[in-house]
């Protein structure tokens, strides 16, 4: 249909083409595509290469006889513990972030008290606190609480540091729900809690899933908190495991890269299903 319109009205055509496909920019995009793809391709192909060949052969060539041996090596090196721990950290982080941020954002949007706007501002400031700045005191705090070297030691700060962005995203979604809907529910005698549960939460599903995915990603990929706040093998998460494999596998680069691939698969699966929510959420961070 649009093609018809284009031929019929040349003016529309210029608009539809906006911004014009600049060949130079297209070329640049293609160049960046190569820069993105070459490492990813090498990651996959090397992880399928036998160790002897990896040391001698051309790393750009696809392995002549691909093998899953490296994946076996990784899976039998305690990979499942790492996976399990990481999953626990991610799920718990998401649960805490949602349980605390949704009511907070709801209060920030729906009450106009001084306290709630102050809290909101504090959270905005929180976006700026880098994790590095607080690891030393967190180490002290977590040790004092008797949580050092436990998964909770990773979960609690990770959740706290996901909250500013969560509150930011949630307030902007909640703000879009019109006051009339609350009024209608209020006339039916609904309590604030019911309004939150039956109106605000369902209507802000998009924001909630963005927050869930975003904080899960943070937890899944976190490195500094686990590095500083845990120690034993039983509490190790994937990122630390990868770091550890670097020493353990030494020259067995294919196994190391197989471990990298395995660590990415769960995230990638989530990405395939929740691509839209993730992309839209991230796009919303910048905005205009």
């Amino acid at each position, binding site marked *: 249909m649009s093609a018809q319109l284009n031929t019929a009205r040349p003016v529309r055509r210029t608009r539809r*083409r906006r*911004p014009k*496909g*600049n060949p130079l*920019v*297209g070329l640049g*995009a293609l160049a*960046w*595509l190569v820069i*993105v793809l*070459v*490492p*990813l391709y090498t990651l996959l192909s090397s992880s399928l290469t036998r160790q002897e060949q990896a*040391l001698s052969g051309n790393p750009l060539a696809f392995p002549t006889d691909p093998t899953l041996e490296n994946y076996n090596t990784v899976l039998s090196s305690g990979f499942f513990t790492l996976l399990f721990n990481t999953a626990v950290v991610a799920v718990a982080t998401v649960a805490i972030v949602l349980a*605390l941020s949704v*009511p907070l954002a709801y*209060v920030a949007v*729906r009450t*106009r008290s001084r306290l709630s706007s102050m*809290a909101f501002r*504090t959270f905005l400031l929180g976006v*700026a*606190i*880098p*994790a*590095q*700045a*607080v*690891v*030393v*005191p967190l180490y002290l705090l977590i040790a004092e609480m008797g949580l050092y070297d436990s998964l909770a030691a990773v979960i609690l700060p990770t*959740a*706290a*540091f996901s*909250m*500013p962005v969560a509150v*930011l995203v949630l307030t*902007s979604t909640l703000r879009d729900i019109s006051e009339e809907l*609350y*009024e209608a*529910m209020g006339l039916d005698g609904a*309590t604030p809690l019911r*309004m939150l549960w039956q109106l605000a939460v369902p209507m802000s599903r998009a924001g909630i899933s963005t927050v869930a995915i975003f904080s899960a990603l943070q937890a*899944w*990929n976190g*490195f500094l908190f686990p590095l*500083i706040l845990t120690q034993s093998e039983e509490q190790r998460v994937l*990122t630390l495991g*990868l*770091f550890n494999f670097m020493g353990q596998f030494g020259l067995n*680069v294919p196994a*190391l890269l197989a471990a990298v691939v395995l*660590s*990415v698969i769960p995230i990638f699966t989530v990405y395939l299903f929740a691509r839209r929510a993730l992309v839209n959420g991230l*796009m*919303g*961070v*910048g*905005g*205009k």
Partner: protein
Amino acid sequence: MTEVSTPLEKQRSRAAAATKRGRRTAAGQGFGRPSVTWALPGIIFFGLFAIVPMALAVYLSFCSWDGLTSPTLVGLDNWTRLFKDPEFRQAGWLSLLLTVISWAFQTPIALMLGVWAAGRQRNRAVLSAIFFVPLLLSTTAIAVLFHSLLDPNFGVIKEIGPWFGIDPNILGSSTGALLTVAFVGGWQFMPFHTLIYQGGTRQIPQVLYQAAAIDGAGPVRQFFSITLPQLRNTITTSSVLMIVGSLTYFDTVLIMTKGGPGTDTTIVPYLMYRTGFQSYDLGYASAIATALVVVATALSLLMVKFSGFGSMRSTREGM
């Protein structure tokens, strides 16, 4: 031009909305306002694990502490040491350099890709999906990956490097290592900034382009006279995130270079980690961390101030 409202106009409309709502509440029609106590668990939790540690970091920066015995106050010792410490000076310089390189490297490419991705080319969606992949990999995974790719003996660099005149032992050279760290960071975060620019570009009113086309402005002119000025706030957001991001770079350095060769990639966060958790000089490490926050915050505030970018509240407007 209605979208380009001045701060004053925004304030006014906000104030108008507020009084409208206020009147409604006064008339007893504000239904089901939640109690502020609902926010308390979240506030307390965030306070305990983010705000308190931040304050504690400042306190610890005035202490001597080895991590085992309890911290003892030593006054300004750490701070005077900080200002005289040649290691810190070098780390600060390297951090600054890394930030500038990262910014100069990422901004033009992310801007280009973002504007490109906002268009309607065929295959754009597929390509954008591929561009996005590095963002899914953890910094650790990426650092481990590039560490292997850049191994001078059996990494890809052995094959590709010579094509571009790059010495395969790039991580062994001081400039090379720093540039590599900047490149790897760019590789990872480019899709994020591309998305930001894509979102910003999509929000530019099409009328502007129509008007420009009628006036006979070509694509290049349109880019410089419309797209770029309209993306001013987006550029600020992206730049602030980039600056804070590269000032707090850590995983990549720890995994890929261990601060080396020598101390040539020992940027401030890595110096803090080494001082605190390898030399167990946690008081001094806290001073370094505090200095880092002060600089990062100051730079962000400066950028926000200079570009007149007020609040992040309305980021999702019109999406």
